[in-house]
């Protein structure tokens, strides 16, 4: 069974090497691909120097377009399982095998690594948790499914969803919306408790000024995804 880790990276020169080493060490069954989203720092050089497998985007596409590139790669290279994994050291590769086991054993279409089942590890700031809980509620309202960590960027999908995402994936702030899209298609999604780390390198893509726009845009996107067929 072919398994791929998709690592979107925008200006992650400080964290990308550690991230890839973490995967090589703790999830040796997985292949990986770094998607360099036209970083302005040394991310690409670090990858090339280490001989990492890189998809180098010649223009900046944002997180959605980057991740989707990984899904297209996974689809064309015949991967059965693909998992998104942040390039900034927030995610831990030691959970990947457990996520794959759960995906296969429970015959799921997606497994999300959730910080909020066991509430261990880095829990994000209070104000963000309020926002995340709001999205949990909204998604439950439109799909009937409780997703405790809808903004988690650590999510594993099977071949079927790889194909769906390769064709269609939201451009910006894609996480909650993309889950709703496949729940609405009747696919099975579940979560696995994981611990995450506070980000060590790089900065969050969501600044305080953008957070209001983020809330409105994602809410609208969830509602749209809910009525889309």
């Amino acid at each position, binding site marked *: 069974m072919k398994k791929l880790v998709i690592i979107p990276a925008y200006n992650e020169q400080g964290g990308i090497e550690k991230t890839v080493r973490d995967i090589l060490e703790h999830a040796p069954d997985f292949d990986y*691909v770094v*998607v360099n989203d036209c970083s302005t720092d040394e991310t*690409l*050089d670090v990858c*090339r120097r280490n001989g990492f*497998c*890189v*998809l*180098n*985007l*010649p*223009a900046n*596409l944002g997180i959605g*377009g980057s991740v*989707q*590139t990984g899904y*297209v*790669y996974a689809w*064309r290279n015949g991967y059965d399982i693909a998992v998104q994994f942040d390039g900034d050291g927030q995610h831990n590769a030691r959970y990947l095998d457990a996520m794959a086991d759960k995906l296969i054993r429970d015959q799921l279409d997606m497994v999300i690594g959730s910080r909020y089942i066991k509430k261990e590890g880095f829990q994000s700031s209070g104000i963000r948790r309020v926002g995340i809980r709001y999205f949990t509620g909204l998604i439950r309202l439109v799909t009937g499914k409780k997703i405790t960590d809808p903004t988690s960027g650590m999510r594993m999908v099977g071949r079927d969803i790889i194909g769906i995402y390769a064709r269609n994936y939201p*451009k910006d702030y894609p996480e909650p919306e993309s889950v709703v899209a496949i729940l609405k298609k009747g696919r099975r999604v579940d979560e696995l408790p994981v611990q995450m780390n506070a980000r060590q390198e790089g900065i969050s893509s969501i600044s305080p000024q953008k957070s209001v726009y983020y809330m409105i845009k994602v809410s609208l996107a969830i509602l749209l995804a809910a009525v889309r067929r």
Partner: protein
Amino acid sequence: MSLRIQILIAVLVLLAILGIANMVRKETLDIKFALSWLTVGVVVLILDIFPGIMTYLVHLFGIELPVNMMFFFGFCFTLYLVFALTVKVSRQSEQLKRLTQEIALLEQGVQKENPDQSADSK
């Protein structure tokens, strides 16, 4: 409307039409887009030469001042144009995204086949 302003408007519109036609000739402006602008130019020119049409239309719509009608229709037209452009931009950004992704995938495929020639272009 005084004859002087009529002539001035006619000259300006004609210049604009010529300018647009020239851009189409040099292929800096797509004829598809030029068409709507040329239509606007011709309509303004007709209204300028025959101000009676304006007066008639103003009475027809029950608008008090001809200038208000110009503002109203001008505004509607601009709104439509801006909207049409945002639709176009959305479609093009999707096309650009696909192109960018394909380039990255192609480049990776080439690199895999000739790993020694890793001449990086940033």
